[in-house]
């Protein structure tokens, strides 16, 4: 089969993306962040900071045991029990990125499958899928997610087991990723469905069909490759939302536990933010910068895909 388009769409996308200098900086930041997250122990060590779980009791007030702010020993200060906030922020990048990428991936895959099926087969398949999307959109997502996460975590630990689906879904990272993916796939499904609806009427699809290609073949060989660019772009838009989403769940106390995460740190900090400004500030800044970088990339990718609304 001949390529339906004259120019490699990826190259075109990259060329247009490259023009946005701010987006390039953002991309650099994200790559840097990923490296930092992977090499967190090394980074913390190089900075001479204690590990994320190490308590430095000398950094607490001798009488009232309240924490102290930034110093040469603890760049970002310490938390209620004397743990170094700098190293916790560094380690916190791990949770944010793991949740961001895996929840986005699951949501994207689910959304693409649903969208493809609905758009390609139309009829009752489309009705069922589109109506399910309608139902999910009608349920306030944050309410649903917090409720779901709470329902899944409350019965946790102990010898009776816990979680959801009779213990299949264990509380913690898994629940958070599941909950976020479960309430985020609808967006992708809608876009893919629309695109598929128009693609299936295109000549090259008609041609393949007249040559006797099976539905599976048409979907995977003809339609899906043409959807790759929009899928990537809309996934990149989803990522920052997922990061904020995870932070919100952590803030509401139904997020990841057991390892430092930015949202959870802000939640902890909210009890005493008036006196310990450093505790809410640094995880918050890390969160804003990360989300901003992903937003800039997503924006630039979107502009590159739809040159009509480009900024420059």
């Amino acid at each position, binding site marked *: 089969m001949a390529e339906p388009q004259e120019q490699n769409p990826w190259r075109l996308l990259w060329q247009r993306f490259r023009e946005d200098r701010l987006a390039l900086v953002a991309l650099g930041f994200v790559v840097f962040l990923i490296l930092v997250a992977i090499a967190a122990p090394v980074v913390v060590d190089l900075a001479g900071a204690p590990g994320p779980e190490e308590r430095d009791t000398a950094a607490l007030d001798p009488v009232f045991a309240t924490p102290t702010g930034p110093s040469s020993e603890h760049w970002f200060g310490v938390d209620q029990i004397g743990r170094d906030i700098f190293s916790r922020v560094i380690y916190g990048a791990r949770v944010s990125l793991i949740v961001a990428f895996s929840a986005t991936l699951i949501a994207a895959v689910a959304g693409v499958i649903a969208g493809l099926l609905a758009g390609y087969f139309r009829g009752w398949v489309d009705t069922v899928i589109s109506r399910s999307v309608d139902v999910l959109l009608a349920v*306030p997502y944050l309410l649903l997610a917090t409720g779901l996460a709470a329902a899944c975590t409350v019965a946790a630990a102990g010898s009776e087991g816990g979680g959801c689906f009779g213990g299949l879904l264990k509380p913690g990272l898994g629940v958070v990723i599941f909950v976020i993916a479960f309430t985020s796939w609808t967006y992708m499904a809608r876009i893919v469905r629309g695109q598929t609806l128009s693609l299936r009427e295109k000549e090259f699809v008609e041609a393949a069909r007249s040559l006797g290609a099976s539905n599976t073949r048409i979907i995977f060989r003809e339609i899906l490759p043409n959807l790759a660019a929009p899928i990537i772009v809309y996934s990149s838009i989803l990522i920052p939302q997922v990061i904020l989403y995870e932070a919100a769940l952590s803030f509401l106390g139904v997020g990841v536990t057991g390892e430092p995460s930015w949202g959870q740190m802000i939640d902890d900090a909210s009890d005493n933010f008036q006196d310990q400004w450093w505790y809410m500030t640094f995880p918050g800044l890390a969160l*804003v910068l990360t989300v901003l970088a992903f937003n800039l990339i997503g924006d630039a990718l979107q502009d590159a895909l739809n040159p009509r609304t480009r900024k420059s």
Partner: protein
Amino acid sequence: MLRYIARRLLWAVALLFIVMAVIFVIFNVLPTADPAQLRAGRGASVEQIEAIRQSYGLDDPIYVRFARYVEGVVTEFDLGTSIFQNNAPVRDIIFDRLPATLMLTLGAVILWLAIAIPVGVISAIRRRSLLDRTTMIATLTLISAPVFWLGLVALYLFAQDVGLISIFPGIGAYSEATTFMGKVSAMILPWIVLASATAAIYARYIRSQMIEVMSEDYIRTARAKGVPEGLVVRRHGLRSALTPVVTLLGIDIGVLLAGNAILTETVFNIPGIGGELASAIGQSDYELIQGIVLFGAFFIVILSLIVDILYAYLDPRVRYT
């Protein structure tokens, strides 16, 4: 038109029913916790737990329980009772908390439109200018900040009791205010925080709408005819750019009522539905969580129904698609 409305209404009812079923399943099938034991709470013996199981019919098959639930909701809007609040009816709790949430949301909507429309329009007209670029980056930063963090930062900077610059009432001021004006001033900071993220999204949306509209042929025609630029923007550009915003607004108010409002209410300790939900989650008060989620869904469905009908009225083509 009537047929469209009838069809749309029917779907809204069906949608509500399905939503109800989904929510019911989530809170009655998924949790591994024993609802009778949760309900029995502190100091309950095995016999008491059994008695509760029987009197609430928790042993009945799920569809019987669902039918009972639907019947309660439909006939008297009975959303169950809250275990942790002396078995107070969930409906009453929600209606009790509703005014604070409504006030928070409506104020925020007005504020964000008041910010988003001028910013979006000016950025669109002064496209690629320094002003445009700065506002676009500023708005993107606001979108990137979690609303609960913005709330904390705002309190740290501006709250009367603890802020660096003591201007606005801080945490818990809403509960303490006894007059309406007191409540309004207590809401200023929450309004700003809640509106800022959404205002940024709207400003960007309005900007791109404006850019698109302003490049349409009829605008060019109007300009060619010598209509002053200000008039072109106001009369032609703004009107068509803002029509889709109405739809977006309908959806967002619903989502906001039940989404970001939770976080804002939690941070500022406003006794609204969101704050109630946050504490219900802490206590695993399933019936209350379920009632609030369902109530939020009602709101979204009804708002989108209103918006759709309005839209069909404004734009006749919609009815036939």
